[in-house]
């Protein structure tokens, strides 16, 4: 079912894979995909998809202010934080 471009998929997943990993996963993923191809035999004409076992939609709650966990608590887990922010490598290139 189409060619498996693992580098493209890895890029979409923001996942760095080594050449060895690409080779390793290519064979395995192809095997799994060929196994699940048995699903093609099932006639699903007119069948609605099930994304979820309960037929829930739009679960609303009152818009009330409730105490939440302090920002500092969350920032404690950050690999890098500065003031009230998570710090990441620079996104915008400088042209100076």
């Amino acid at each position, binding site marked *: 079912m189409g060619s498996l471009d693992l580098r493209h998929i890895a890029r979409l997943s923001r*996942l760095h894979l080594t050449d060895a990993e690409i080779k390793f996963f290519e064979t395995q993923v192809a095997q799994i995909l060929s196994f699940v191809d048995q699903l093609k035999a099932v006639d699903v004409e007119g069948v609605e998809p099930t994304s979820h076992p309960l037929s829930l939609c739009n679960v609303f709650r009152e818009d009330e202010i409730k105490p939440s966990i302090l920002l500092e608590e969350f920032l404690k*887990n950050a690999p890098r934080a500065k003031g009230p922010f998570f710090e990441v*490598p620079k996104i915008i290139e400088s042209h100076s």
Partner: protein
Amino acid sequence: MKHQNSFVHDTGSLSKLTIHQLADRYANGALTCDGLLHDLSAAIRSRDRDQRQIRAYINFDSIRPIRREVPKASKLWGIPIAVKDNLCVAGEETTCGSKILKGFISPYHATVVEKLLNAGAVIFGRTNQDEFAFGSSCETSCYGPTRNPRDPERVPGGSSGGSAACVADHTAIAALGSDTGGSIRQPASFCGVVGMKPTYGRVSRYGLIAFASSLDQIGPITKDVRDNALFLNVIAGHDPKDSTSADVPVPDYSDFLGRSIQGMRIGIAAPVQTPILENAVKVLKSLGAKVEALSLPHIAYAVSVYYIVAPAEASSNLARFDGVRFGFRDKSAPSLLEMYEHTRGQGFGAEAKRRIILGTYSLSSGYYDAYYLHAMKVRTKIKNDFDAAFKKVDAILSPTAPSPAFKLGEKAASPLEMYLSDIYTIPANLAGVPALSVPGGTDHSTGGKDLPLGLQFIGKPFDEGTLYQLAYAFEQATDYHKRLGNVC
């Protein structure tokens, strides 16, 4: 009195008791909580020193009890509960068995943990699991594998392998697990204990690190059926913090124990008649149940549907692990994009990568309709099969797993073969229905040791009570829980 004293002085034996036995001892003043925790710690330390290297706990050398002051009459007062590493416990490292979450200290408790603490239970120890619950053997954890206490050459099953192993090994009284495609029931089967995957929505998932959000459920792993019912009584129920938790009344599950199963209708759809299943049919018939053959025509496609749907949801859920807000980060990466890619490349193990790739592929442009959408439609047909079946029967009976525990490394090279070990458990997750595994006997075919095998009862949505009724009747009639040494 002499009997009780002999227990108290025999280090390690209090840990062999069940929830209900401990509750009786608390009630008649024969036991203190500190005494029990001391005994349990001693049992855990002795297992850490022994040659079997079970390694059910990831923090065996640093377990600290977490408890609340609540009235002694509370439902699980003084009962230590081990917790799977994918459930948030405030102030404790919670890593889902993954390097990418190393160092993450949860700022809050999962709702199930809150409920346990409010019921007087003591949170005691974190159990090993497959990384992000991806696996059926407990071998993909970043902490290394857990071994099966029934035979340390073998896996305990997975992904809740640590939880099942510590209950079977008497280093826990009971444990919390989670089940996305069999992760409570298959390890319960491999380790010879009782595991319940409740109806989807029965137990709040708030604070459970998500694997596949339309399939995940939290449930109890215990030494016997009574304990399981007492445990589910505490954790079941609607939670405003989880919008997919169902607002459905929760009965007292212990009311179902000991009720006659005379005239109850049980369906069998398994194509293979195993000795365990034949024996179970004989037992259930002798107790007055009616057993009939049943057709679930699309169940054969369940594993395929699952390995489209579960990785798709997982690839989406795991997008949050990007090195920005918590856990591991590759700090040497010069740009944001490289930081994401290398953090994830180094932080995730092989099975997590495999599932992210599979899931991203089936959701990607050009393949969504052929894979994901198609699988969701076949899922509807599987769900319809169950709806039709439950018009005729009260429960469906099957083996829990196609084999007893396999050896460490045996299936590690073939992901597909590993996936097929969940062939009997996956359908209940896809349909969202409850299912319970209870010890169904032992297998001698592998030569060496007698290995436990589970029997699975699958029920109607929100009808966990009927499963307890049937499993309790079976357990009391067969005594496998005693023969396995779960209950003294």
